[in-house]
């Protein structure tokens, strides 16, 4: 490496490190302060907990005074079911739209791409009305349906791009082999889409897990609250229980991190083993 290259490399890394700190900093702050007593949170928010300031009071309160485990499982159910449906239907729709030419296929693709451009929240009132008349308000099903609708357009868009990269010869070979179309999709195409599916899965679950808006307007009873909504009960108009808020938030971060780590491994494995020629 020449000096010039080294200087550039250091420069690039400085920018990246700065960005990482900016991105990770708040999360670190939340996690760190969730283990401190209230006075230390305000007294010295930037120092890690030490012997005198360490406390699990936030976590205790969260477990004692709220149904955090229920919220947790609600969030997990909604997120995972939505993700599974988005991936399944997204991949199938992407396959159909790229592989088959049928009457209205272009119009359908266009219609779906509109979903990327128009934010689903614009339809909140209509969605609420629809769920009410369908008798689905205050159910997890309502949330799943909304999130599937929200995630599908982007996932179809991304997966279509990936499907187009799969050599056409593979499908033709499978057809000559007598493999039925559904099996071609599930046993030839889908395994090759693994890296794309991991990407789409990450894109899909993060906004769903973090969403506050739809749980707020579509669920009302405690039994259907998700984690993000459950945290709100510690945020009062006059008093905010910061210990509990930070503890609950720290716990809410965890599953997303775990899922991301699992999927990113999948992503890398898929990228290195997908060679076709």
């Amino acid at each position: 490496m020449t000096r010039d290259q080294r200087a550039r490399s250091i420069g690039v890394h400085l920018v990246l490190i700065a960005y990482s700190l900016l991105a990770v900093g708040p999360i670190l702050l939340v996690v760190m302060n969730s283990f401190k007593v209230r006075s230390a949170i305000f007294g010295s928010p930037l120092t890690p907990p030490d012997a005198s300031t360490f406390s699990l009071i936030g976590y205790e309160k969260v477990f004692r005074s709220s149904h955090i485990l229920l919220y947790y499982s609600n969030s997990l159910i909604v997120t995972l079911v939505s993700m599974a449906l988005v991936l399944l239907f997204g991949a199938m729709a992407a396959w159909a739209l790229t592989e088959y030419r049928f009457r209205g296929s272009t119009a359908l693709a266009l219609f779906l791409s509109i979903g990327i451009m128009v934010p689903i929240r614009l339809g909140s009132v209509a969605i609420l009305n629809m769920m009410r008349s369908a008798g689905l308000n205050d159910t997890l099903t309502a949330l799943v349906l909304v999130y599937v609708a929200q995630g599908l357009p982007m996932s179809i868009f991304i997966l279509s791009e990936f499907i187009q990269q799969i050599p056409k010869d593979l499908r033709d070979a499978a057809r000559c082999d007598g493999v039925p179309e559904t099996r071609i999709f599930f046993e030839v195409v889908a395994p090759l889409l693994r890296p794309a599916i991991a990407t789409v899965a990450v894109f899909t679950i993060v906004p769903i897990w973090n969403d506050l808006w739809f749980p707020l307007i579509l669920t009302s009873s405690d039994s259907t609250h998700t984690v993000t909504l459950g945290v709100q009960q510690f945020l009062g108009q006059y008093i905010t229980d910061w210990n509990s808020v930070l503890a609950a938030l720290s716990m809410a971060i965890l599953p997303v991190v775990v899922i991301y780590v699992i999927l990113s491994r999948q992503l890398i494995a898929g990228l290195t083993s997908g060679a076709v020629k």
Partner: protein
Amino acid sequence: MANLSIEHLNKRYGATTVLNDVNLSIEDGEFVVLVGPSGCGKSTLLRMIAGLDGASGGDIHIAGKLVNTLAPAERGIAMVFQSYALYPHMNVRKNMTFGLKFTGVPPTERERRVTEAARMLRLEELLERYPRDLSGGQRQRVAIGRAIVREPEVFLFDEPLSNLDAALRVSTRVEIANLHRLLKSTIVYVTHDQVEAMTLADRIVVMNKGCIEQVGKPLDLYYEPANLFVAGFIGSPAMNFFEAEVEGIEGGRARVTGAAFRTLDISAASLKVGDRLTVGVRPEHLVRGEAGAFTAEGIVELVERLGEASFAYLRRVDGKMFVAEVRGRQTPAPGETVTLVAASPDVHVFDASGLRVATETR
């Protein structure tokens, strides 16, 4: 094993015609090579035989059965693709048996066929490997194996050697020829490489712009090309063409003159005075000499040495170029004027519409 017949086959994409009234009949056990420049429709024709592309008109019969509306798997064909098209996430064994699961072949029979094909293609050691761990030649053998285990009526090959390097191409070519001898199956093979076509084919089908130009045995195409296109396409370097005109006819013999060669005397019943002709001579049929049935002069501009022969590129009197093969160590030097002659059976004459004129030169 089966014969294959194609009648009045057409393929159009919108306004463009890809195949225009193709008729072809292939015998049981015959090795037929479709050859032509890119975009001539040969791959489309193969894909239509396979059932991967639909026809705009016409019929395809395989083993006497009309297959127009049948799915690829129901036609009794197996196809080998240029890109091998192996399933990347399955090992060699699975690649070969994957399709058999869906066509009702029992597991023991699948196993027997894979063992048999692996033995034939020397793949025994590779059965548990994945395509990414195989070389190009091995992958192509797996692709052929996958076709063999289907025990098809007709094998379809779509430029199977194009992705291999030169040495491997020669050895795989020999393997395919051996395979045909062993299996005695009907094979339709698409290539743009005329060496493959000449070496492998029982019969060659030369295609151009969606039409069949000529069908014939390899050497028949070489020695008696039916038209200018086939004459120019078969043979490497390509045949030299000289513009010519019938100057006079005396006693059933035509005197043919042209700017770039000495007057030629051919027998021709169908010719008239003033007819415009094209005279063709292959580079390998030109030898140095003083006077022959066909005689042309040129100034050497460039010599390509290949070893057993060299190609001399010569500038003719009319300013155009032609090529002559020179054998041996003594090659003409650039700038030298050389006289080249060809014997009468090696002179091809084509009429103004490009069709071969049945003629005998003296």
